[in-house]
């Protein structure tokens, strides 16, 4: 009696999902292939462009940029030099560039997709009601699960890695854009309206400038999440530092695993401090 579930057949959710994904794969193959090729080419261009810069010059450029972005302070600049020299010294420079390209590309795509959705959410209560649970779903579903359809759509390599990162890392940008715009003080919105602004004028002259610090906080989160996908994406063949970690794991090599992991930490800290400083409000 208590075990009545034995007699109930399992609802075939997994079959449905599988069928749906294979239907998507077949139906939109004409879309997925060009996306795959286009993104792959784009990433090749970025990677080879970055590879063309000698590591010394690259490290110096990062340090100079760090110095000026942090308001002429030496902390981040020194850390960047030491950290990047270490990664170079460990022979992980190429992997670093691969990882950086992956993070950069997926972050930019997240921002391009996330900000407009965030704006839409801030303007429409209905959109907010629909999109919020979807964002919750995207963030709580274990990131590994996205790898499966990603491979179905784009086979293995770096592009499905980006696809998985996109789903996992976009929500913060969307949420913070929505929040930032909704937080703009009512009086400023009224002022914009009272002087006869059109919707786009209000958005670009008042709301987005006022929300930019909040949006930047969201972008910072997005970039960090994209970076956290690096190891996971390596499971489906994305190159970079993540692949080093993964292969160390498979061979139970503590040393190389630690070094690759440490390199990811160094990259994470540099990227985090950079994105935090882009729009830091220094007037406060």
């Amino acid at each position, binding site marked *: 009696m208590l075990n009545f579930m034995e007699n109930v057949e399992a609802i075939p959710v997994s079959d449905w999902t599988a069928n749906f994904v294979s239907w998507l794969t077949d139906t939109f193959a004409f879309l997925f292939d060009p996306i795959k090729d286009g993104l792959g080419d784009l990433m090749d261009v970025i990677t080879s462009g970055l590879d063309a810069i000698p590591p010394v010059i690259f490290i110096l450029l990062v340090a100079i940029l760090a110095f000026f972005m942090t308001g002429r302070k030496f902390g981040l600049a020194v850390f960047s030099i030491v950290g990047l020299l270490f990664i170079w010294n460990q022979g992980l420079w190429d992997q670093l560039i691969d990882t950086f390209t992956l993070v950069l590309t997926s972050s930019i795509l997240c921002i391009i997709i996330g900000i407009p959705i965030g704006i839409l959410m801030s303007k429409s209560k209905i959109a907010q009601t629909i999109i919020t649970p979807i964002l919750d779903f995207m963030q709580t579903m274990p990131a590994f699960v996205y790898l499966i359809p990603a491979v179905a759509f784009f086979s293995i390599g770096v592009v499905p890695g980006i696809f998985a990162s996109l789903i996992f890392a976009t929500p913060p940008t969307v949420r913070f854009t929505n929040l930032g715009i909704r937080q703009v003080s009512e009086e400023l919105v009224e002022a914009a309206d*009272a002087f006869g602004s059109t919707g786009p004028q209000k958005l670009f002259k008042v709301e987005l400038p006022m929300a930019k610090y909040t949006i930047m906080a969201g972008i910072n989160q997005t970039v960090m999440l994209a970076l956290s996908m690096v190891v996971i994406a390596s499971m489906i063949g994305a190159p970079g530092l993540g692949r080093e970690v993964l292969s160390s794991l498979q061979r139970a090599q503590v040393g190389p695993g630690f070094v690759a992991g440490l390199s990811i930490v160094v990259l994470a800290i540099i990227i985090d401090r950079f994105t935090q400083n882009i729009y830091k409000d220094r007037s406060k």
Partner: protein
Amino acid sequence: MPIIKVENLSKVFGKNIKAALQSAEAGKTKEEILKETGSTVGVNRASFEVEAGEIFVIMGLSGSGKSTLVRLINRLIEPTTGDVYIDGENLAKMDKKELRRVRRQKLSMVFQRFGLFPNRTILQNAEYGLEVQGLSKQERSEKAKSSLELVGLGSYLDQYPGQLSGGMQQRVGLARALANDPEVMLMDEAFSALDPLIRKDMQDELLDLQETMKKTILFITHDLDEALRIGDRIALMKDGNIVQIGTPEEILMSPANSYVEKFVEDVDRAKVLTAQQIMKRPETVNIEKHGPRVALERMREAGLSSILVVDSKRVLQGIVTADAANEARKNEVKNLSEIIQRDVPTVEKDTPLHDLFAVIHDSPVPLAVTENGKLLGIIVRGAVIGALAGEGEVNENA
């Protein structure tokens, strides 16, 4: 034709709008309606007209609906029912594009907490209204600069709002509102966030500006002193209803009901009433026609010990005392000009009561009230004290 005409304007917040409107029409109070329908009546069938060049003050305590009312006028809040005519155009019924045009050209607004854009310089703030209209950079910067100069901020163009004091920030708000040369300015508690001294300065400055600009100003305030000080007419609001509309004197002297009466009872009348309102008709003699004998006669009839002397155009010449006139009659002096004292304590007709004390307290003779030298009336000490006590011997036609 009135420039603003508001007819039966109502705003109900909440879901059960129809029921709430009906209850409001049946004369139920805001609280009863909230209990019955769950909806709040923000503004209940407000109607009034504002003439061009007038400062019309909407005054009420918080929750009285005054801020809602002003936002219904430029439709920052959508009216539930009713009409708002600006210059003959019904804002309540127009589409968004039309509404934008009216907001750009005819209406502008000044906000309680200034509503300045912190990421824009003072000049860029003042330019905002012109920028959204699509004016060229040069044109809008010229107009914005001249309106900033008008409020005395011509040298702060490149500063940011955060670098300015509250009073200066509100001047920027004022300059921004003036820059697109609107016909109507809506000022929502514009000076309420400023400290009292600055507030008074700003009130004076607004009145000065108004002398030259002749805008129509709808001014919202919760401060009765402010309302009485700057308003040509005042609408008093309570619980979404307009309780009374009138000139400051009418509100003070003939409150429409006990609510208004209670409201005005603490007002410092000395700051509101002017010499003109408490003066009495003067006894005079004409220096060109009359001699000491007539002067003496008139003093005796009215029971006075002195009498004011004017010329045929009623320009004040001086004063003649009974003693001097008696002396002159004995000495057969025919002309008043030989015995006149030229030095008469005089005040202008719009001098507030407050400023009369210093003049009147040691003056042996009544004060003369003049306008451009012409004698209008006299003030005796008793009238000042009577007016302060709220005894309504005030000239209604003043």
